[in-house]
């Protein structure tokens, strides 16, 4: 196939007309999408990323003032909290593959945090992982956080796989508290178990 007639045509592209067309399409699609979303029953609020941060909002509504690391602009009132975007210090939580998690497990270089419920933790967890149910941050923070070396300690949160948000919520909450080296093992418990890596059962790490 002779590619020359295709690839040398870039200079003969009518750029002005093309960009006008592209911009027109973009504006039309954006306008249509926003209108559709406004009237669609399952539309989402555009101002706040509510589904992603709902747990964080719950925490803020409960006014956890004992932790000085919170860097948010949320108000104490429910209505205001729902309408105020939460500023996360870092929305870029690094994620680890199974290999990355296992390497750190072998080197004992990181602390694993199990973000699942107590029952799931007792049924089986990564050896050494601390129980830290993300939906009960208030209960576990005073127990787990003092056990950590410092705020630069490498922390790896996990839950039951890619369908679950608990590890991300926990990682975000910890990052917001000033922990600088928080990662998420995204494959989580199902992958660890499937790989036949060591596990512990019971309520002790």
């Amino acid at each position, binding site marked *: 196939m002779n590619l020359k007639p295709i690839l040398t*045509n870039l200079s003969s592209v009518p750029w002005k007309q093309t960009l006008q067309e592209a911009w027109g399409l973009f504006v039309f699609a954006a306008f249509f999408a926003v209108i559709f979303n406004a009237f669609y029953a399952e539309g989402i609020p555009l101002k*706040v990323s509510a589904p*992603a941060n709902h747990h964080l909002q719950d925490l803020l509504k409960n006014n956890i003032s004992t932790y000085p690391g919170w860097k948010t602009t949320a108000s104490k009132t429910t209505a205001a909290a729902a309408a105020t975007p939460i500023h996360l210090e870092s*929305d870029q939580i690094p994620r680890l593959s199974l290999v990355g998690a296992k390497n750190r497990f072998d080197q004992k270089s990181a602390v694993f945090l199990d973000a699942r419920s107590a029952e799931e933790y007792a049924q089986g967890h990564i050896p050494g992982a601390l129980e830290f149910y993300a939906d009960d941050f208030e209960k576990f923070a005073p127990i787990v956080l003092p056990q950590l070396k410092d705020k630069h300690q490498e922390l790896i949160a996990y839950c039951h796989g890619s369908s679950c948000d608990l590890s991300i919520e926990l990682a975000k909450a910890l990052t917001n508290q000033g922990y600088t080296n928080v990662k998420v093992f995204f494959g989580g418990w199902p992958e660890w178990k499937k790989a036949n890596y060591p596990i512990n059962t019971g309520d002790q790490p």
Partner: protein
Amino acid sequence: MKKSSPKTNWVLIVQTLLRVVCGTLLIYASLDKLGDAAKFLKVMENYHILPADLLPLAAVVLPWLEFFTGLALALGWKWRGAAFIFCVLMGIYTLALAWNLTQGAEMNCGCFAMDKMEKLTGWTVLRDVAFLSMGLIVFTAKKTYAAFDKN
């Protein structure tokens, strides 16, 4: 229709076919996301590319942008502008996928069907590079056949 030369003609036919393929592909990719912005928002959040404040707007606009761009490409209406958007989208998707792959991310691609767990691999990135190449071939066409546009 006046033929210029058999070779050029053949290239234009391939470019026209690719235009329809790219358009159909984009429409297909948008369908699962159109009615479920909340789920698409979660998929996009996992990519860690956009700031949290921009995510909902992107989750609402992107599927419809894909849909209308795909429609324009398939029908040949403002096809070159649509091909430009197609290339920009594929370029962004490729970079986003490649970046997440280097981070050791194990996540749902969310490229086509959002519920179908499609793990991110090197092949996913290569596939998007192939789509981008197809888009570039369409974009640089001198003209196209079977289109709403006259050019």
